[in-house]
């Protein structure tokens, strides 16, 4: 009897769960569900941590003076017009009139002045460094702001003006330390969206700012659920439980998603890189001949086909992606195994004891460890391919797979190039912003660890140093391109890194949910331009 009653209760429960209409599975009109990968803190500029999509989401709530357009070219945003003095030292900006904070107060030049002074004082890894070039900010009237720089700066427009989110002075004035800034929950910005609800680790709900100075945002409500697992997030997209996903679609899913009715797959260049990083302080790997030989064994074209199913662009030896603004078109690299063998023989790396592994002239065998990231199957398989190809020419490599923090600890201890390095080779990668910065080649390859802050291999070349310093203070685009081209030619010869490929950015969304996404080159569809038109 008891058992029968129990069965009845269970049956009723299941029936209720199934019969009640699937509340919340369908889309509510005017609202758009976009899956994100992780908790983004309070969505305030000081809880911001990662480039894409962290910055893109945070800048839906906060505005910048300029904003990168679909080609990553900074266009005026809060600013109506800008004038730069001939020496590049004085920037006079005029703001749009009638810009309001979410709490209704006016946004004025005082807020701009406050923001840049604030980020210089209260350290943040993204806002503080590009602001250090600022000597003084003046706010002569509510809509005019004047920046006086210590020296001309190639990256000022993109990295400072189009990047640093403007903070409301009346709220941030009293917040004076990093811990306090990270704890600030009063998320008042001037952007097209306001934070209506935030449940840590679950979701954010953003609502359109009806007073937005550039016009009404096109979507009334943005729901950003955190979906931790990539596969699950695409299942949710397929099952119409979300309309879009910040993640890049895995190559093996592209064909399937392209066939799905109502699903749109957009793809284009990706500015993130997957590369083979050498340690130039290693007694053997400091020899450019050996690095060239190693690069010549790696068939990046086959890698793109095998690992990325063709959805990637083969690496360019000067680091920059062929679609990036400073790319030098003539710089190419064709792998050739015969050439690798010739290079090794020529440089005196021969198998002296017939064990199948070549030795240097002093008898040291060519044996290396190759670090790669756990949780990234494509990189692990890439590392395995490299190991096989190197074995073919008599170089022995051990692939070591480790988690992110452990890899950083060896390749880039404490994220400080000055702290040295403890590795041979690593399959590594840089995110998209590294590609678009005009100063990228200096950051990556300058030998002074305080200037070449991304030079994790410890590469040294005085010529590159000089050109890098020149590049950083060059404001004229034509001259920039000229210097960058020369730098790429040298890098392609020295090969401090060997770029394997640049994975394409492939994104999928449901057209019925929303169809006015703007694809930003190298990054994707998650950006302000997808929801509002640039201010006129």
């Amino acid at each position, binding site marked *: 009897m008891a058992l029968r009653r129990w069965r009845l209760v269970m049956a009723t429960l299941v029936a*209720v*769960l199934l019969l*009640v209409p*699937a*509340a*919340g*599975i369908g889309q*509510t009109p005017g609202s758009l569900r976009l*899956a994100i990968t*992780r908790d983004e*803190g*309070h969505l*305030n500029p000081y*809880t911001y*941590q*990662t480039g894409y999509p962290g910055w893109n989401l945070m800048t839906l709530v906060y505005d910048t003076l300029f904003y990168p357009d679909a080609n990553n070219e900074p266009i005026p945003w809060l600013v109506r017009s800008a004038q730069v003095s001939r020496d590049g030292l004085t920037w006079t900006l005029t703001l749009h009139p009638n810009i309001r904070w979410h709490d209704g107060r006016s946004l004025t030049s005082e807020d701009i002045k406050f923001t840049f002074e604030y980020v210089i004082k209260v*350290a*943040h*890894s*993204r806002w*503080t*460094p590009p602001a250090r070039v600022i000597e003084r900010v003046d706010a002569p009237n509510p809509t005019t702001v004047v920046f006086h720089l210590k020296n001309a700066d190639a990256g000022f427009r993109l990295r400072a003006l189009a990047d640093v989110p403007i903070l409301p002075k009346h709220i941030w004035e009293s917040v004076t330390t*990093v*811990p306090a800034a990270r*704890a*600030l929950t009063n998320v008042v910005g001037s952007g097209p969206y306001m934070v209506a*609800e935030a*449940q*840590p*680790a*679950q*979701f954010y*709900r953003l609502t359109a700012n009806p007073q937005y100075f550039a016009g009404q945002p096109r979507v009334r409500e943005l729901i950003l*659920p955190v*979906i*931790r*697992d990539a*596969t*699950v*997030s695409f*299942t*949710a997209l*397929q*099952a119409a*439980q979300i309309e879009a996903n910040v993640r890049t679609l895995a190559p093996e899913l592209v064909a399937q998603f392209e066939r799905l009715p109502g699903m749109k797959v957009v793809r284009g260049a990706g500015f993130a890189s997957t590369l083979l990083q050498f340690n130039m302080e290693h007694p053997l790997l400091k020899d450019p001949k050996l690095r060239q030989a190693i690069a010549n064994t790696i068939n990046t074209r086959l890698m793109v086909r095998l690992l990325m199913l063709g959805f990637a662009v083969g690496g360019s030896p000067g680091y920059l992606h062929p679609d990036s603004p400073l790319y030098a078109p003539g710089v190419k690299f064709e792998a050739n195994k015969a050439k690798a063998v010739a290079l090794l023989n020529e440089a005196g790396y021969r198998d002296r004891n017939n064990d199948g592994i070549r030795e240097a002239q002093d008898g040291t065998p060519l044996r290396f460890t190759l670090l790669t990231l756990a949780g990234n199957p494509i990189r692990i398989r890439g590392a395995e391919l490299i190991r096989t190809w190197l074995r073919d020419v008599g170089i022995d490599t051990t692939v070591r797979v480790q988690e*992110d*923090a*452990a890899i*950083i*600890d060896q390749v*880039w201890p*404490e*994220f*400080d*190039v*000055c702290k040295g390095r403890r590795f041979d080779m690593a399959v590594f990668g840089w995110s998209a*912003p590294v590609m678009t910065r005009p100063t990228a080649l200096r950051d990556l390859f300058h030998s002074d660890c*305080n200037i070449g*802050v*991304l030079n994790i291999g410890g590469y040294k070349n005085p010529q590159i140093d000089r050109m890098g310093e020149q590049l950083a203070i060059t404001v004229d685009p034509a001259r920039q391109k000229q210097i960058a081209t020369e730098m790429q030619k040298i890098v392609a010869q020295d090969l401090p890194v060997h770029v394997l490929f640049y994975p394409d950015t492939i994104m999928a969304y449901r057209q019925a949910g929303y169809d006015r996404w703007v694809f930003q080159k190298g990054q994707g569809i998650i950006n302000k331009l997808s929801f509002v038109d640039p201010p006129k």
Partner: protein
Amino acid sequence: MLRFLAGKGVQYALVLLFAITLNFLLPRMMPGSPLVFLVGEDIGFMPAAQRAQIMREFGLDQALWRQYLIYLGNLAQGDLGFSYQQGRPIAEIILNRLPWTLLLVGLSLLLATLIGVTWGLLAAWRRGTSVDLGSLGVAMFFESTPSFWLGMIFIAVFAAGFGWFPIFGAQTIGVPLSGAAWVVDRLRHLALPMATLTLITIPGMFMIMRYAMLAVLDEQYVTTARSKGVAERRVIYGHAMRNALLPVATVFMLNLGTVVSGATVIETVFSYPGIGRLLFEAVLARDYPVIQATFFIVTVSVIGMNIIADLLYPIIDPRVRHAR
């Protein structure tokens, strides 16, 4: 009894202190630094002086023993600290996550125990028959099934396929609900993760109950009862089951202690906001205060459950009482 309790108390206090110390030391011995989570991933562009300033503001520049003393002091005042990664007070984070974990893991454990015990009892009773062997096979299958795989299958079939359940999350977003609709919404989100967790927990309970029952059924007092002509039902429920439940109770209490640590894999697959996911993400982010606080809560809970088990045991097993 009092002396027994005092002895136990000292013992547990020592265990707790040891655990707290380990909680403090282990995360700091892992390679990697929390800096990137404090200031963002462009950390490379930050000069050394500024990094030092930030380490100072978060108290990370202090000698390890001082950090340890500060940690102990704060803990004594009930202050769990601030999350590096999320910029929120940890007490708030844990209170936010705990109900979800208790709901998911607690309910699954209860359900799994009920089902596992009943099933184990039936299997032992029908020892050697096709019912028993079949049950053993099914239990082995679920015992060896990875939880993420089972979760994925459930998502593919019941959520994506039939569309009966939501694929992710713990609640519907942006639709205000109240009353019965609110409860049903939570239950619908709970159903699949709970079913997965229950299914992989049942086999353990089943096995314990089955073996305990088999051992008890071989005891002489059971034979005596049967030869006295006591009805089979009464032999099973009245004589055998009550003794066979003792090991089940022990395992249940131990499991109950770990309920607060959540179910990392299932919480991740279903994007469920529990403690397991919190802990996992904190480890990846080297979020020392969160790692410490979460392990602390788990430790306290496990020790607490042990104390309760110690106290309950003489009641459920009179032999323990008499032995003392």
